[in-house]
């Protein structure tokens, strides 16, 4: 698979990457629009601005491969192929939700699509991915596991403990750090010395790669190599992608006006919108006509309409279900 880093990418794949990114963007946009109605009664951590990473990484994963993610997981779950209906219904607290209304936005799960669950404890998902990879290695099932997490999670001891173990056992796991420079509202400089997160890998004998996380093609190519390495039994890779969160840490609003992050920084990154940049690129390369784009957009909007309708017309769990699923 090493050639993937150079070879031209088939048009279908290019278009699929676009469709996935757009689905994430539009789903999150719709969540914002609906959130004020106060019917999604759970905290939402939106990934608008970070779509390229989910799309570029998951493009290489098979349905049975595992991903583990965090509080900010909508994009990863969508990119991994999860049904929008079951996500929307979970946000709406319905019994048709992927976690039967028990999990909410922070605990999406769909084992049928290789999504065994997401955790809102920072760093928590990283060893879980290593553990699933250990299972795959022991079973010889050929699966790859991916952990998505933020720059904030990179400071938790479990991250480094997981790197150590995964390296020692040469596990088929890829650690994907989405560095959006903030953990809630703490800038990286308040938390870490000025060293790339990717550079922490070498101390554990693991390759660490940094790339622009808003360029889906760069993500696609670097992830290709890491996932191929994992699948071929050569062990883990740490990927660090720099990107930017457009919305507040939690909720549908912007936090820029309130002074949580510098306005110039935000503007700079808004200019580098991963969806738009990619759209232009595809247009320039003649891969995607305006008409096709419209069609994709329409198809996705329709899917989201259906998902939201499904969610809002679904039944709520019965109070007695409170006591189910504890064990």
């Amino acid at each position, binding site marked *: 698979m090493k050639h993937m880093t150079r070879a031209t990418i088939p048009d279908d794949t290019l278009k699929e990457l676009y469709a996935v990114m757009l689905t994430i963007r539009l789903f999150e946009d719709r969540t914002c629009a609906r959130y004020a109605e106060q019917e999604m009664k759970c905290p939402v951590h939106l990934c608008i601005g970070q779509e390229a990473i989910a799309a570029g990484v998951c493009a290489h994963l098979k349905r049975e491969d595992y991903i583990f993610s965090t509080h900010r997981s909508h994009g990863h779950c969508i990119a991994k192929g999860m049904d929008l209906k079951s996500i929307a219904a*979970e946000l709406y607290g*319905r019994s048709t*939700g992927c976690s039967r209304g028990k*999990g909410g936005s922070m605990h999406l799960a769909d084992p049928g699509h290789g999504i065994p669950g997401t955790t809102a404890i920072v760093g928590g998902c990283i060893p879980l991915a290593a553990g699933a990879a250990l299972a795959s290695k022991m079973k010889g099932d050929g699966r790859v596991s991916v952990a998505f997490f933020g720059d904030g*999670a990179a400071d938790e001891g479990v991250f480094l403990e997981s790197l150590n173990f995964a390296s020692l056992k040469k596990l088929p796991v890829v650690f994907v750090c989405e560095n959006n420079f903030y*953990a809630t*509202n*703490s800038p990286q400089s308040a938390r870490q010395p000025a060293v790339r997160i990717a550079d922490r890998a070498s101390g554990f004998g693991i390759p660490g790669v940094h790339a622009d996380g808003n360029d889906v093609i760069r993500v696609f190519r670097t992830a290709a190599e890491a996932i191929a390495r994992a699948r071929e039994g050569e062990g883990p890779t740490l990927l660090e992608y720099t990107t930017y969160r457009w919305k507040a840490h939690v909720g549908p609003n912007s936090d820029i006006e309130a002074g949580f992050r510098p306005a110039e920084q935000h503007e700079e990154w808004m200019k580098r919108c991963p969806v738009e940049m990619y759209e232009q690129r595809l247009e320039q390369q003649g891969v995607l006509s305006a008409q096709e784009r419209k069609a994709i957009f329409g198809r996705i909007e329709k899917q989201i309409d259906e998902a939201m309708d499904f969610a809002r017309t679904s039944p709520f769990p019965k*109070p007695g279900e*409170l006591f189910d699923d504890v064990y």
Partner: protein
Amino acid sequence: MPWTKIQADDSHTPVFFGGDERAREITYRNAIREALSQALMTDRNVFLIGEGIDDPGGVFGTTAGLKETFGDERVMDCAIAENGLTGVAIGAAIAGMRPVFVHMRVDFLPMCMDQIINHAAKWSYMTGGKVKVPLTIRAIIGRGWGSAAQHSQSLQALFAHIPGLKVIMPASPYDAKGLLLGSIAGDSPTICIEHRWLYDQKEEVPETPYMIHAGKGLVRRQGKDISIISTSYMVYESLRAASELEKEGISAEVVDLRSVLPMDEELIISSVMKTGRLIVADTGVSVCGVASEVAAIAAEQAFDSLKAPVRRICLPMTPTPASHVLERAYYPDHTAIVRAAREMTA
């Protein structure tokens, strides 16, 4: 010691100092902020640390503006690395500082249980009392809005089980300020559990700094038929229940424990001896919880006065669900207390 300048108050008075002209109604949130600010002002060795502590939101307002006043060395934002940084705070405390570690949710404390349980709680004992750990850890309990299993636990019992720790749960603004100042000035590692639903509560609070020491509860409302012994936010549900019960001719006494380790056994016993009936209302789950401890104390030491089986009003033994429909079934409120009281006095 700058702390000698601050007056200690163990007077059991539920509200403000008589005669302090500067007592004003302020919120629980602001009472905490005032305590932190006065501690920072009084003692150069006090510092605050926590992820997002200097956030414009200011940890629900409780630290707002403090960085601007005291600088980012003394109001220190930090990495998400709870065990390591709790160790750092303990090390600093051992070396003479008085750190206050702030966590947005108590759910994150399992990350640093080792440093809390095995180090902070035991250091004084292991060193034969030669080295103290004057560390205060603030941790917030959430509730509602689909926060789900990992963001709405109420884990005070885990700490109350550990010798060497103190665990305070202020329910009122006056107590929040006094208990926090008492803890920061004290020489023992103390966990301060705050409930988010209390932050808007108002009460008259003196501006002058004062301390309340952990270990004393207080009677929030006198009664003679039944004791409702409660913690934190459940004090309000208990008071509401007591009002309703009054209409039915049942006189309920409401006790606010304020501190769950040490626990005010005397007060529990005297209240139960007076009323003969006990309901315990705690914010956590029942099994091996604070409510079990209160019930056990009553069964051991006020047994002869008990006229009816004890009742615990706690969270059920399930993780917290996300859907608001399930949340409604999950959280007990004053109606559950009223129901229990009716049954017990029937």
